C-alpha cells in the first residue's frame, strides 16, 4: 500500500473512531436520521444469503404461525456465530461483571441449552481477580472510540495552542513595536543572518523537577540554571513577564520594577546564577539551597494554580462514553440485531425525532421510557399499519390499547399456548411483569405467544391497521436472554421483517440538536466551554479593555517622490538653505522642460517660457519671471539669504513641469 493509501486509511480510521466516540454523543440535526447497527460479518452474510435463496421469494406476509416461517437451523447457526464473536463480551467466562449479575446467572442455570458454557462456569465459581488485559472488555469498537476521543482532544488542544500563540504574538507586537517608526524587517533579517536553532525548556513543572533532579545528582550548575528558568517562567505564567530568547535578565528586572519584592528576589537570583554562568563562580549545594528558598514560594504558587486549572479541565473529560458496553454486554441488544440482520431485516437505531417516520420502516422496537408526544407518534405509526414492539409499561400506551403490565415473579420456563403446534419451543425468562389484556374490542385479533402460567407474557394486539407486540420484560430481548433455550428463535420469528426496516427507538431518539451550542452541550463540552469563557472573562478583566480589541495593521506606506521632495524642501527651510534648494531643484526642472519642449537644440529662457506658455495656457511674462528666478538662484545661492518665497517658487515650477508633461 502506498504512503498516501496508508494515510487515507489512518484518516478513515480516525474518522470512524470519532464517529463511534465522542461525536456520537450529540448528533445534530444534520446527522442521518438513524445509525446503522453492526452488520453481520461477511461469513454471516454469505450464510444468510444462502439460506435466503432457499426460501420462497413470495413469502406470505402474515403467517398464522410465525414460528414456521424461519428455519430454526439458520437462527441457531447465526446465534452460534454471534455469541462467539469477540465483541459479544458477556459470553466470555472471564467477564468479571457478568459473574456478579445474578439475573444472568439465573438464566444460565435454567436451560441445559446454554450457549455460553464459560458463563455458566464463571457463575458457578467464586469471583476471582480479572486479568489486567481482559478486564477492560477491549474491542475494536471501543478502541476506535478511544482513538476518536483522543483525536478530538488532540485537535482541541491544538486549537488552544494556536489561540495562545496568536495572543502571544499580539502582545509581543504591542510590546516591541518601535514607537513612531514603521516596522521594516524581521523575515529578511532572519534569512540574512543564520540563526542557531534555539530550544529551551519552558515548562515550570519540568524545570522545577529538573532543578531538583540535578541537585540530587550534584550537578549544581544545571540545578541553579533550571531554578532561574523556573522562576522566569513562573513569572511569565503569572503575567509579570514577557519572555523571549532576546530578553536579558536586565530586561526582566526592568519589567519587575513595579513589584519591589519580586524585583529584589529576581535580582538576587539572577546575580547569583549569572556569576555561575558567566563569572566562573562555583555552583555549590549551599548556593542551590539559598536560591531554592527564594524561588520556591513563587514557583509553588504558580504550580498550584496550574494544578487547579488542570484539575478543572480534567472534570470536563469525564463522560460515560466508555461506561458500558451497550452492544456486546449482557443487557445489550447486539445479539438480537445481528440475528435479525441475518434474517434480512435491516435494524437501525433512530436518532432523529419521530416527527416523520419513513415509509420503509415496518416495525419499531421501543427501548426504555418515552415522552407522551413520542407515544402519540408511535401509536399513529402502529395505527397506520406498522408493528410497534414494546417491553415496558406506559400510561399512554395502556390508555390507548388497554394492555397493562402487572408485577410478577417467576424464574423458569415459559409456556406456549396452543395453536402454534408443532412448534414447541423452550423459552426461559426471569419474569418480573406479565400482561393484562383488558377490554378486548376484537378478541380474535389478540394473540398470545408466551405465558407465565395463565398470564400472558408475550402477546400481540391489533391497533388500527397495525399491531402492538408486547413483551413482559425488556430483559427477554437482551443478549443474555437470547443465549438461552429457544429464546432467540422465538424473538427472531416475531420480529423478523423480511427486506424491511426495524428501528430501535430509545433515549437517544430525538437527541439531535437544533443548534451548534446545543450539540456542544449535549456532547458534554458545556463545562469546558464555560471554563474557557470564564478564563476569557478573567483574562479580559486582567488585561483591561484593550484585550480582544482589533489592532490596526501597521501601514507601510510608500511616499510619492513629490512628498520626499517637499520633505527635503522643508529640511532646507529649517536649515535656512531654501535658496540652495531652489538653485538645485529649479535647475533640474528647467533642464527637464528644455528636454521635453526642445529636445533637438538648446534654447534660452525666453524661448522656453514661450513654448511652455503655449502648452499650459499661462501668460508668458509670468513664466519668464518664474524661470528667471530659478536661474538667478543658481548664481547667488551662496550669497543671497534664503526666504520662504524660494520654496514657493520651487513649488510653482514643479507644478508647471507637471502640467507641461512631467519631469520624465
Amino acid at each position, binding site marked *: 500500500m502506498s504512503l498516501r493509501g496508508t494515510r487515507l486509511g489512518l484518516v478513515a480510521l480516525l474518522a470512524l473512531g470519532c464517529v463511534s466516540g465522542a461525536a456520537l454523543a450529540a448528533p445534530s440535526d444534520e446527522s442521518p436520521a438513524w445509525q446503522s447497527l453492526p452488520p453481520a460479518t461477511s461469513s454471516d452474510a454469505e450464510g444468510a444469503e444462502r439460506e435466503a435463496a432457499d426460501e420462497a421469494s413470495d413469502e406470505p406476509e402474515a403467517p398464522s404461525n410465525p414460528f414456521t416461517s424461519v428455519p430454526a437451523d439458520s437462527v441457531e447457526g447465526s446465534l452460534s456465530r454471534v455469541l462467539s464473536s469477540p465483541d459479544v463480551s458477556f459470553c466470555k467466562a472471564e467477564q468479571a461483571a457478568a459473574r456478579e449479575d445474578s439475573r444472568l446467572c439465573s438464566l444460565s442455570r435454567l436451560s441445559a441449552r446454554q450457549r455460553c458454557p464459560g458463563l455458566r462456569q464463571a457463575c458457578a465459581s467464586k469471583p476471582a481477580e480479572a486479568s489486567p488485559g481482559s478486564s477492560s472488555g477491549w474491542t475494536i469498537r471501543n478502541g476506535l472510540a478511544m482513538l476518536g476521543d483522543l483525536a478530538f482532544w488532540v485537535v482541541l488542544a491544538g486549537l488552544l495552542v494556536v489561540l495562545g500563540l496568536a495572543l502571544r504574538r499580539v502582545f509581543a507586537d504591542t510590546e*516591541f513595536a*518601535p514607537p*513612531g*517608526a*514603521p516596522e*521594516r*524587517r*524581521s523575515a*529578511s*533579517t*532572519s534569512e*540574512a*543572518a543564520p*540563526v*542557531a536553532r*534555539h530550544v*529551551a525548556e*519552558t515548562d515550570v513543572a519540568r*524545570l522545577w523537577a529538573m532543578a531538583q533532579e540535578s541537585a540530587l545528582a550534584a550537578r549544581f550548575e544545571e540545578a541553579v*540554571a533550571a531554578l*532561574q*528558568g523556573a522562576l*522566569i*517562567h513562573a513569572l511569565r505564567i503569572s503575567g509579570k513577564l514577557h*519572555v*523571549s*530568547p*532576546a*530578553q*536579558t*535578565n*536586565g*530586561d526582566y528586572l526592568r519589567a519587575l520594577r513595579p513589584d519591589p519584592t519580586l524585583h529584589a528576589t529576581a535580582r538576587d537570583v539572577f546575580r547569583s546564577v*549569572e*556569576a555561575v*554562568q*558567566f*563569572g*566562573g563562580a562555583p555552583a555549590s549545594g549551599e548556593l542551590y539551597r539559598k536560591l531554592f528558598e527564594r524561588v520556591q514560594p513563587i514557583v509553588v504558587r504558580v504550580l498550584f494554580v496550574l494544578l487547579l486549572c488542570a484539575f478543572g479541565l480534567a472534570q470536563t473529560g469525564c463522560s460515560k462514553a466508555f461506561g458500558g458496553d451497550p452492544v456486546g454486554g449482557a443487557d445489550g441488544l447486539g445479539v438480537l440485531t445481528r440475528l435479525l440482520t441475518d434474517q434480512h431485516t435491516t435494524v437501525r437505531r433512530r436518532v432523529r425525532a419521530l416527527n416523520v417516520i419513513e415509509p420503509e420502516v415496518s416495525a419499531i422496537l421501543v427501548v426504555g421510557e418515552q415522552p407522551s408526544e413520542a407515544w402519540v407518534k408511535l401509536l399513529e405509526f402502529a395505527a397506520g399499519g406498522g408493528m410497534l414492539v414494546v417491553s415496558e409499561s406506559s400510561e399512554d400506551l395502556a390508555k390507548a390499547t388497554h394492555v397493562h403490565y402487572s408485577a410478577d415473579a417467576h424464574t423458569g420456563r415459559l409456556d406456549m399456548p396452543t395453536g402454534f403446534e408443532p412448534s414447541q419451543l423452550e423459552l426461559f425468562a426471569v419474569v418480573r411483569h406479565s400482561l393484562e389484556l383488558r377490554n378486548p374490542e376484537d378478541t380474535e385479533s389478540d394473540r398470545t405467544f408466551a405465558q407465565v402460567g395463565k398470564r400472558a407474557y408475550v402477546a400481540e394486539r391489533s391497533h388500527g391497521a397495525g399491531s402492538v407486540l408486547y413483551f413482559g420484560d425488556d430483559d427477554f430481548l437482551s443478549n443474555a436472554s437470547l443465549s438461552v433455550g429457544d429464546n432467540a428463535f422465538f424473538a427472531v420469528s416475531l420480529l423478523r421483517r423480511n427486506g424491511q426496516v426495524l428501528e430501535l427507538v430509545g433515549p437517544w431518539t430525538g437527541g439531535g440538536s437544533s443548534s451548534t451550542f446545543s450539540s456542544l452541550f449535549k456532547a458534554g463540552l458545556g463545562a469546558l466551554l464555560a471554563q474557557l469563557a470564564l478564563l476569557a472573562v478573567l483574562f479580559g478583566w486582567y488585561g483591561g479593555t484593550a484585550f480582544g480589541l482589533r489592532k490596526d495593521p501597521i501601514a*507601510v506606506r510608500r*511616499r510619492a517622490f513629490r512628498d*520626499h521632495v517637499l*520633505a527635503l524642501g522643508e*529640511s532646507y527651510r*529649517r*536649515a*535656512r*538653505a531654501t535658496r540652495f534648494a531652489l538653485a538645485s531643484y529649479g535647475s533640474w526642472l528647467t533642464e527637464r522642460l528644455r528636454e521635453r519642449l526642445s529636445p533637438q537644440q538648446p534654447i534660452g529662457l525666453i524661448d522656453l517660457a514661450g513654448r511652455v506658455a503655449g502648452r499650459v495656457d499661462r501668460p508668458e511674462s509670468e513664466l519668464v519671471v518664474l524661470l528667471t528666478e530659478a536661474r538667478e538662484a543658481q548664481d547667488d545661492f551662496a550669497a543671497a539669504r534664503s526666504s520662504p518665497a524660494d520654496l514657493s517658487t520651487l513649488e510653482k515650477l514643479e507644478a508647471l513641469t507637471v502640467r507641461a508633461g512631467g519631469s520624465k
Partner: protein
Amino acid sequence: MNLEHLSSELRRIETEVSRVLVGQESLVEHVLVGLVARGHVLIEGVPGLGKTLLVRALGRVLGLSFRRIQFTPDLMPSDITGSTLYSQKLGEFSFVPGPVFTELLLADEVNRAPAKTQSALLEAMQERSVTTDGITRPLSEPFLVLATQNPIESQGTYPLPEAQLDRFLLKLEVGHPSQAAEAQILLNYVAGFDPGELSHLNQVSTQASIVEMQRSLGEIRIAREIIDYVTDIVRRTRNHPSVSLGASPRASIGLLNVARAHALWEGRDFVIPDDVKSYAHAVLRHRLQLQPDAELEGITADHCVDSVLRDAIVPKTSA
C-alpha cells in the same frame, strides 16, 4: 585589583558631577564608561543641555586637565594639533602644542569645521599621538575626546565622515531633562549656582586612578558565549535590510570593551549579556549607514539596532 573600590570610585565621580549636572545621570554614566574603556564620545543634542558643563565638571572632579575647542569653518588643523614657530629670542624653531595636548578635550560643535580640520583629530583619537613636522608626539594618558554636535542645523555644517565617526566609541543622544530635574536646575540657579564657577566641586579621583581603571579592564572575565553574542549582534547589522553599511570589527571590539567597562561600573569581574545589550545602541548607532529608502521612511539607526537586538538570542537564556 579591587573591583569594589574602583566601582565605588566611579559612583562617587558620578554623584559629584551630578551635583551640577542635574537630570543627566545616564549621560554621566555613559561618558565615564567610555573613559574607562579608553574610547571617545560623540554627544549629540540641542544647545543648552549642559554638554560643556559636563566636560568641565568631569575635568574638575577627575583632576584631569581640560581644554575646549570651538570648531568653526575657518579652524585650521594646526589650531588643534599645534605648530612649530620660530622664536626670535631663542633663535630656533620650537613646537607650540595645540589644545589636543590635554587629558580631556571638548570638541564643541565638531561638525562646523571642514573635513580637513576634523581629520586632524583622527590620529590623535586613534593613535593617541600627534605628528607634526615629521615628529610624533604622544598624548597624555588618559586622553578622552568629547565631541558635541547639534542635530538640527545643517546649513554651514560638515557631516563627520564615516572614518571619523568610527573613531568614536560611543555616540550619545542627550535628551531634555525631566520636569523635576529642570525644576531642580532652576532652584540651583536661584540659590546662586554659577556654571562658570565649579570650584565647589570636589576632586574625587586622580589621573592614576583612571589609568588603573583602564588597565583593570583586562582582568574582567568574558565568557565565550558573550563573545559570540557580541559578534552575532554586529554581524546582524551587516545583514540588516535597512542598512547599507554595517558595523565594523572595530565596533565589535568597542562593544566588548564597553561591556567590560560597564561590568566594572557594576562592580562585577565578569561580563553578562546585559552589559552588551545596554550599550549596543551607543556603540552601533553612528556606525550604521542606512539605505536611502529606509531613511526616507523614517527608519533610524536606533530602530535597526532595536531590530537586531530583538533577533539576537541571548546566551544561556531561559526562554
